[in-house]
């Protein structure tokens, strides 16, 4: 689906005319997205400026991650961290530059701030100072990532309030950066989670997180995990089941997951068997025609698991909408929506249990911003999508103990066949009500899901990632 204003904004002449005339037309930035499989060095030769509060504890992993991704690092201040950056520079032959601030002639792809050392209200000044001085040097479609600690784990009220303050700062910055297509996100690193930052840091600094902004996720060591993260073909030889995969977000997800080397089980209901089969053929996957609300669903999946050696990841994407205001909503609409979106998911997770999920498996739930914020005419849909979050909270810690990472994504306004059917005026409003002033593409959600299926997603457990472009509702 094309967005007229994004296309218009991409035309420099049109952009200039509209600006000169002072027309009240928002011109969203055309987002720079990833293409194809993860490359070995996603930030090759891109400038990344790194700052931090004194006493930060994450320098080493930041230095390593940036050098390994091929970034050209500008270390802003932070002389205490220089030795760690020098060592990473040597290992990867990626020299860093120490500077006082990002030079005026340099545009950086990303600003990265280690806020783990912030323990008081005064310390917050370093956060303000770094971004105040350097934010003007951030390129379009740029990235801001802040690494903090978990407020609840802090020992003093002062430290807890300072750490919590960072979240408000990042979410607000995200809203300011949206017009230029840039994003800002926060990774709260729990005690013991330091060594797992690399994978999420790569993803949030890379092009795949284009439509993810104003998010705060916790990186922890909850998921039992002993293997190394891999960033090239991370899903090589893995069995991944995607439900509702015949079209839309499901199909985009199946394609991206196949790109990363997985064997994808393309599941959709029998009515969509043709579309599922066609997709499965193009991505070398296996079509599965079954209605997930039927009793056969579980038995079919179990026999597939037994035949192919278990699932390494399951993406519970299948979902329906049956919108009506509550007073007019018949029982059938309620029952179907709740059963497909919630009941069936619960049953399939139970049926596959631990016996048919492999070690270090990943499960991804598809919630929705409607489930968080509520939506007119969607009491049934919002109930089902909110229900998934209850499942997330309770099941994630239990699964983590056996090495399974259970996480969820919540798409906001995504340009799909479903949203194309919304009346034009409403659709136009929905698109612009986000920091990035545009709808997302199915691939944006697919990228988030793909990441949550990789080994490196062991950094997350029970996390909800909104893929909403910084939607103004339901924050």
């Amino acid at each position, binding site marked *: 689906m094309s967005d007229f204003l994004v296309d218009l904004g991409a035309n420099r002449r049109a952009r200039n005319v509209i600006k000169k005339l002072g027309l009240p037309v928002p011109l969203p930035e055309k987002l720079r997205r990833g293409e194809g499989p993860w490359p*070995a*060095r996603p930030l*090759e030769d891109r400038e990344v400026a790194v700052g931090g509060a004194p006493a930060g504890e994450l320098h080493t992993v930041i230095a*390593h991650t940036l050098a*390994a991704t*091929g970034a050209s690092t500008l270390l802003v201040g932070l002389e205490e961290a220089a030795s760690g950056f020098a*060592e*990473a520079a*040597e*290992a*990867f*032959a*990626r*020299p860093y530059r120490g500077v006082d601030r990002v030079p005026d002639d340099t545009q950086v792809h990303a600003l990265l701030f280690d806020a783990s050392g912030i323990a008081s209200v005064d310390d917050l000044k370093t956060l303000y100072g770094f971004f105040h001085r350097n934010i003007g040097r951030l390129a379009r479609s740029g990235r801001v990532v802040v690494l903090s600690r978990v407020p609840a784990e802090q020992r003093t009220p002062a430290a807890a309030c300072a750490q919590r303050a960072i979240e408000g700062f990042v979410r607000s910055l995200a809203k300011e950066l949206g017009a230029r297509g840039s994003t800002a996100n926060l990774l709260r690193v729990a005690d013991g989670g330091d060594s797992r930052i690399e994978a999420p840091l790569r993803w949030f600094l890379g092009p795949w997180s284009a439509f993810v902004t104003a998010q705060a996720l916790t990186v922890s060591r909850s998921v039992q995990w002993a293997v190394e993260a891999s960033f090239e073909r991370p899903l090589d030889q893995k069995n991944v089941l995607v439900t509702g995969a015949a079209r839309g977000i499901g199909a985009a997800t199946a394609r991206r997951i196949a790109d990363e080397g997985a064997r994808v089980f393309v599941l959709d209901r029998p009515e969509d068997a043709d579309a599922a089969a066609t997709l499965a053929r193009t991505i070398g996957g296996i079509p599965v025609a079954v209605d997930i609300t039927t009793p056969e669903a579980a038995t079919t999946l179990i026999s597939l698991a037994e035949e192919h050696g278990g699932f390494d990841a399951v993406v519970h994407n299948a979902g329906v909408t049956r919108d009506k205001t509550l007073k007019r909503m018949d029982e059938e609409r309620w029952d179907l929506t709740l059963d497909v979106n919630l009941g069936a998911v619960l049953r399939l997770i139970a049926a596959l249990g631990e016996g048919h999920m492999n070690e270090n498996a990943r499960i991804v739930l598809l919630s929705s911003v409607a489930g968080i914020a509520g939506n007119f005419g969607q009491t049934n849909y919002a109930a089902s999508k909110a229900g998934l979050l209850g499942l997330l909270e309770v099941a994630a810690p239990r699964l983590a103990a056996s090495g399974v990472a259970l996480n969820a994504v919540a798409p906001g306004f995504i340009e799909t066949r479903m949203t194309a059917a919304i009346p034009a005026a409403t659709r136009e409003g929905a698109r612009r009500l986000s920091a990035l002033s545009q709808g997302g593409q199915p691939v944006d959600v697919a990228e988030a899901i793909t990441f949550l299926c990789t080994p490196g997603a062991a950094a997350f457990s029970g996390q909800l990632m909104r893929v909403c472009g910084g939607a103004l509702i339901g924050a």
Partner: protein
Amino acid sequence: MPVAFPRPRARRAVIVAGARTPFQRAFTRFLKLDAVDLGAAAVRGLLDQTGLPGSEVDSIVWGGVILPSGAPNVGRELGLDIGLPRTLEAMTVSRACASGLQAVTLAAAAIERGEADVVIAGGGDSTSNAEVKMGQRFVHAMAPMALGKKMGAKDWLGVAAQLAPIKEILPQKPEIAERSTGQLMGEAAEEMAERNGITREAQDELARDSHHKAAAAREAGVFDDEIVPVTVGDEVIRHDGMIRPDTSLEKLAKLRPVFKKGGTLSAGNSSALTDGAGAVLLMSDRKARALGFTPLACFRSWAYAGVDPADQLLIAPAIAMPRALDRAGMELSDIDLVDMHEAFAAQVLSVTKALDSDAWARERLGREKSVGAVDFSRFNIAGGSLALGHPFAATGARMVTTMARALHREDKQTALLGICAAGGLGAAAVLERV
């Protein structure tokens, strides 16, 4: 991954002799000799020098990089050219600049597996005779005509239309560019110099030393038994053509950067296109003694490695060399002589820097400590490719011969070889005096 070495071997392959043509700058005195001629000269010289009858040879394993498209199995052709028995089997292998070492280690493996007792291995290239290619579109457009299709006016117009713009029908300039990245090798080396902080001065110093050591070795007669004279027309060529005994840092500093404006790589600290070939005679230990040869050296180990060519194209020896050491059960400090192919001074210094880095060792080798600093007083003691030249596949054979002989002459025990190659490949071997 590391194979447990040294393991007991029922048969051991030993190097008994080596010979090479003089190395000459491309498009000079060897212009008229192609890869087969050069290889034939080296192998003929080796047999003359050793007095080995051709009937004793079981196999020829040859290496080549720019293979003549009409006769890519150079090893076979040269055998036929110099009158070796027609029943003597032969093959030709290609692993870019590591092709020569690849041929020699394949020969050693074949002997140790019991497939052969006597093998001639080596390699050579005539960069002067690189074939100039026509564009693929030109080839495809002209194919119907070449295959004898009857052409009407309309067909001719069709061919003409396919050949616009005009550059499609011009021959393509041969370049040493990576297929996967399009980057010229010199550009990659330039990038490595920059990223590893290798200065122009350090590169020029390495180049100067290479020339001075090569000149001293030539003076001392080190190459006299290695080089076989080659006759071209009325001229007998006995010596390498590119060594500059009188070069100095001042002279080298005057040369312009060649791969990048403001860069640090010059014609003086980059190896030049060269014509030449080298051959090594390998035998099983027992056969060598039965035929009355004195074994010079054997391989304690070898290793090949690959890195992402889009990252540091020529750094792979910094992985292959430690791997070979591991397989030999040795440390760098156990090694008496180090011989590295000098594609570019910047590449050699990037590799030695990585070998001496704890950070590299931890990230790339899974070792706690660095491999160690290379002692430059024991490094390329008879000069390297910067001074001698680099006829691609000949270099590995040259290095094996020079080191095998040096171990005897200098009364040393072990030598470590390292070669970088296009495609992000690296090769290494540990030679041990027998």
